[in-house]
């Protein structure tokens, strides 16, 4: 019984990792860049949600507004970051872009510390009163249902965009071969901007969900989930969308089960141990070879 309970805890945590890992993996799939500022987009998304929910109070309607507002803001930010920081470096060595990404991350974190209405001190994130449901002796909370539900809806939506729309087709083409896609008349710049926007919007949604589950916002809150999502993306095979989803869930469950049945001190060790193991045993990740699914 306790095992099933821990599985539910793990899946709930894993769905947030999965949402974030999607952002990593999509950007990597298109421009071969590890966008280390992705965790900080989560933080900005959570803050955007924080302002909406503080002004409007916590109701289902205001939650919806918070999601839309925060995802829009972060999508725009994602495009701005791409245009100003990454685009000029598109032809430079990949290490330069990687270092820039770390720089952007540091800039956002420390920028948030000095912006007066964000500030360095943790703030309580407004959430609905927790309701618990008892299903055959297993305790499931409202928060867990919301987190899992919203994640699944967004993942289905993403799947449709990538596989069922014209833009999705362009994304897949660009990912497969950027130069060839360009020659075939695809506006590569537009596709890359769109990818960053989608990735950042998912990050923002992940931010609100993360803050709903762990109701506190502070400038460094994106750091740890960002790293974990990176591990999840590598685990699933960086560049692969189903891989990122599966990687997120595996990581969340592994972490929770370690805390629950071995020792809470080892949880982070196991998470990053998985990264090392994957890099040694199967560097391409679980779905790494499946290039057709690559975005």
């Amino acid at each position: 019984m306790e095992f099933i309970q821990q599985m539910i805890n793990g899946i709930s945590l894993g769905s947030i990792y999965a949402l974030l890992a999607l952002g990593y993996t999509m950007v990597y799939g298109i421009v071969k860049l590890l966008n280390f500022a992705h965790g900080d987009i989560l933080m900005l998304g959570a803050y955007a949600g924080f302002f909406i929910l503080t002004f409007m109070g916590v109701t289902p309607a205001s939650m919806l507004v918070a999601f839309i507002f925060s995802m829009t803001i972060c999508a725009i930010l994602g495009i701005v970051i791409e245009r100003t920081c990454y685009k000029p470096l598109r032809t430079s060595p990949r290490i330069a872009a990687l270092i820039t990404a770390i720089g952007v991350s540091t800039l956002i974190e420390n920028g948030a510390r000095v912006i007066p209405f964000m500030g360095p001190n943790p703030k309580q994130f407004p959430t609905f009163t927790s309701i618990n449901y008892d299903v055959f002796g297993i305790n499931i909370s409202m928060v867990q249902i919301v987190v899992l539900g919203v994640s699944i809806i967004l993942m289905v939506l993403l799947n449709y965009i990538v596989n069922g729309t014209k833009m999705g087709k362009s994304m897949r083409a660009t990912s497969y071969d950027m130069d060839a896609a360009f020659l075939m008349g695809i506006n590569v710049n537009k596709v890359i901007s769109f990818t960053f926007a989608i990735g950042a919007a998912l990050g923002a949604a992940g931010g609100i969900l993360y803050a709903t589950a762990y109701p506190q916002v502070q400038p460094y809150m994106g750091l740890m989930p960002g790293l974990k999502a990176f591990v999840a993306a590598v685990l699933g095979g960086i560049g692969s969308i189903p891989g990122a989803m599966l990687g997120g869930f595996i990581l969340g469950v592994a972490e929770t089960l370690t805390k629950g049945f071995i020792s809470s001190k080892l949880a982070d060790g196991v998470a990053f141990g998985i990264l090392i193991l994957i890099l040694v045993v199967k560097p391409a990740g679980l779905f790494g070879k499946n290039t057709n699914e690559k975005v």
Partner: protein
Amino acid sequence: MLKKVLSVALVLTLVITTFAGCGSKAPAGETGPIKIGSIMPISGPVSAYGTQSRDAIIMAVDEINAAGGILGRQVEAIVEDDEANPEKTKSAFTKLVTDDGVIGIVGALTSKCSLAITADAQARKIIMISPSSTNDTVTDAGDYIFRSCYNDSFQGQVVASFAYKDLKAIKAAILFDNTNDYSKGLTQTFKAKFEELGGTVVSEESYATGDMDFNAQLTKIKGTAPDVLFIPDYYNTVSLIAKQVKSQGLTSTMLGADGWDEIANNAGDEVVGSYYSNHYSPDANDPEVKAFVAKYTELFGVAPNALAALAYDATYILTDAIAKAGSTDPEAIKTAMMETNKKFVTGQISFDAKRNPIKSAVMVELVKGTEPNKPAVKYAATVNP
């Protein structure tokens, strides 16, 4: 040749600037203001403590200066921010001692940060009085290290005996921060006392500073059905844990220590019905407390928390000792500190051989406030040493 000339010039410039730096540093002389340093977490995870403590120190110093200062000189307080990060505490300490030339330090606030500088303070003969570092080992570094709060051995015992005797709890669970000296110390003393009284600690789970997800640990704790759950950490982490306690459907009474001070402003109704130990209760019927609370509230617009009261007391203990010593000689101040025996805001204070004050603790309860999700604090009991 040009290279050589340049390098000689560079070396000369360096040497000159180094000496210039030395010259400008005012040694603890006999003129000018008496400088007291303070290291507080003014930003970061426990900023509510740091800002209030800083305000209380400045209020105390202003009062002393208005009354003519000490030894006929004004007192100047220099406050540095350490963000509750021991690395930053160290650099703040070096700055205060070498650049500002302070003779004493009120701080640091958290045990982890204080422990980072006690050895240096002892070696440099800087009188250090921490207002609120309760970890037992803080004063171990030597006879220049004092504190104005009781220590965790006492505090852990207070909470344990309150749980066993007043709440009639038999089974206790502990969820603590394994990377924090304060949290670990309290866990040990609580456990020892609770088991000595006849209770059992059925579950002892840990996490690391910065963790956000406690569902796994709480699921495990729930399986052992404890009467009380002791969470010895600071208010920000506690407010996160408390929400997850409720969403896991855990109904044990939550207990905490002085790190819970300010929880009423940082958590919702999920903490109602919990108890924690504290240094004083602002609603106490005591002239010193009343005067302090009234003046602080008038100046800063909020009621002072316990850590503000401790910082205020620490400032007075230090300046009283300097006045009594009649000089800024560290030896003399240290001896005068040991002779402290006076009533302050947080109670009658005298020091034992290990420079810990001998004083009482209060237990307070969190009750429903006038507004929803704004819990209030109610005095529950006083426990004497």
